[in-house]
């Protein structure tokens, strides 16, 4: 077992070094900040180094891509934040890893996020942003980084794969039910790689390219974005512009914050979930734009002293000509509590339920209902180093077994 040993060595070395390097990492932060023109233009480079170790049962959950039962997934994320005067802010995120989602690809580097934001007024009533950036939907994206998320994996709505494919249009309920593993019939040649064809309702932070406007008016906040890919689109498509923006996705969130403790939000999104290259598979007489993903969501968060609670619920409709509307509802409730200044624990309940579609013998559920419970204790050794362990138990969409468990460990160095 090469990867567990590698992960253990990395963890041991990291903790040992980090315990004596807190001051050094503070100085690194200072060294990686530059300014000119009397501080009017400032830039800062920061980052995280993550070492993730997964111990998995098959079928491997979510968007993790591996053929084995263990997976070591290191990642370097480098962030650039730059302030140009009072009105212009720019940011970028580059990553080097084995795939956007944990997997076994060759180690490579990507530019995942880059955007420029213009804020004309100082009171924050309006900001306009263009580039590639996280979706405005929900509230999870604000804490999806490895340092701030108490869990290693994303909540279920952001990673549980449905039976809908984005590279091919389902032409019948039989096809969709096979793709969803509700009925057999998936061609053997595809079975081994079909995970790369399926899409969730929201793919992680959804760093698709586009423009956005956001701001605050009193206790209300608003954000809307116009992007080149739907919420469910996979990372490879986030920078694609081969469709000439003919099928953009519009998303928006309206938030209300009565005080610092509570935050309420409602979100909506509408866009085409099929990739432009899937046009050849569309049912004759129908257009790509008819294959729509419509999402309605609500999020609530609460924070008080050592307690934080988040919940999000999404109802999603995939419109499939000739098949009908494939609806699904997904939600999670997550809480984190700081037990000591350095030790915290989090628990999350996730569930996704599928509605029925018309079939020859009557209505049939178009997916296996799934629930998952995640436990995650975490410890911050220093202000720059953190260890999280996540144990997950999942039921549903499991094929050979009813329950699958996942053990994930993540050690992070922040600089």
């Amino acid at each position, binding site marked *: 077992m090469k990867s567990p040993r590698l992960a253990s060595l990395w963890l041991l070395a990291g903790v040992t070094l980090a315990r004596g390097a807190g001051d050094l990492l503070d100085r690194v932060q200072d060294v990686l900040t530059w300014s000119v023109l009397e501080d009017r233009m400032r830039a800062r480079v920061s980052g995280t180094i993550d070492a993730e170790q997964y111990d998995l049962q098959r079928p491997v959950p979510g968007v993790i891509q591996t053929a084995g039962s263990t997976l070591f997934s290191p990642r370097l994320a480098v962030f650039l*934040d730059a302030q140009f005067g009072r009105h212009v802010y720019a940011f970028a995120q580059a990553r080097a890893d084995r795939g956007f989602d944990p997997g076994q690809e060759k180690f490579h580097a990507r530019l995942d996020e880059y955007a420029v934001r213009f804020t004309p007024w100082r009171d*924050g009533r309006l900001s306009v942003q263009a580039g590639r950036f996280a979706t405005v939907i929900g509230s999870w994206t604000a804490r999806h980084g490895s340092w701030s998320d108490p869990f290693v994996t994303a909540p279920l709505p952001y990673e549980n794969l449905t039976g809908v494919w984005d590279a091919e249009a389902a032409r019948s309920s039989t096809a969709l039910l096979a793709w969803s593993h509700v009925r057999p019939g998936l061609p053997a040649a595809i079975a081994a790689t079909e995970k790369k064809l399926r899409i969730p309702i929201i793919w992680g932070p959804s760093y698709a390219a586009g423009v956005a406007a956001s701001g605050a008016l009193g206790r209300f*906040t608003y954000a809307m974005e116009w992007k080149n890919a739907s919420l469910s689109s996979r990372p490879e498509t986030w920078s694609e512009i081969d469709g000439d923006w003919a099928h953009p996705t519009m998303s928006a969130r309206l938030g209300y914050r009565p005080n610092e403790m509570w935050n309420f939000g409602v979100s909506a999104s509408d866009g085409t979930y099929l990739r432009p290259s899937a046009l050849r598979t569309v049912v004759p007489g129908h257009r790509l734009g008819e294959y729509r993903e419509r999402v309605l969501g609500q999020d609530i968060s609460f924070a008080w002293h050592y307690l934080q609670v988040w919940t999000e619920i999404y109802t999603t409709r995939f419109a499939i000509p000739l098949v009908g509307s494939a609806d699904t509802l997904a939600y999670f409730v997550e809480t984190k509590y700081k037990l000591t200044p350095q030790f915290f624990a989090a628990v999350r309940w996730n569930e996704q339920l599928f509605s029925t579609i018309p079939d020859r013998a009557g209505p049939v559920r178009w997916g296996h209902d799934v629930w998952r419970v995640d436990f995650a204790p975490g410890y911050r050794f220093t202000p720059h180093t953190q260890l999280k362990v996540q144990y997950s138990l999942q039921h549903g969409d499991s094929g050979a077994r009813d329950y699958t468990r996942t053990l994930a460990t993540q050690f992070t160095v922040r600089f």
Partner: protein
Amino acid sequence: MNAPPLAARPRSRWWRRAILPAALLVLTSPGARAQVTIEGRIALPKTRTTPVVTQRYEIVTKGGVFSTNPPLAVVYLEGSFPKSATPAAVQMTQKDLSFQPSLLPLQVGARVEFPNLDDTYHNIFSFSPAKRFDLGRYRANETPVPSVVFEVPGLVTLRCDIHEHMRALILVLDTPHFVITDPEGNFRLTGLPAGRYTLKAWVDSKTTRELPVELTAQGSLRVEFPAVPK
């Protein structure tokens, strides 16, 4: 090698031999307090760059430049002093997403209150060995104002768990005699008792300069700390 002690004026040997022992006896007794003053200057490091506030996933961007204090030093007198009453509580506020002041010297046993003057949560914490604590998330006008008593001498680095750029330092000292320099490094310590002490200047977590000093009643002393070697 230690430098010879700097002595407060007047410097006459005759005066010192005849009067100093008796004066020291009186002035170091509980309740006695001479009015010795030390003035001086210490070279400070270059001003740090104003931090960049991370706003990648913030819907509301208010813009603007956040100010921080320029580098400052803490000058203090180290020695044996009579136990004083519990030091008065002091405040370190969070305003405009920064700590004010960003450097706070304290006497051991002092209580620090951390009022939040922003319209958003702050979560102040420290993992420093001299004081580990986490105040949790608290809002403006919260009562009682979150506070911490610092019982162990040492350097405490404060951070905010929500706003990554926020950082401040509390220097907990086992002496009642300390002062913060001005941005040019000038300082003035007053109301000091006579005697032999070590005058220290804390510049940053890696740099503390020190000089032996000898203070006599009603005297004053001018001290120039040598420049910090590069």
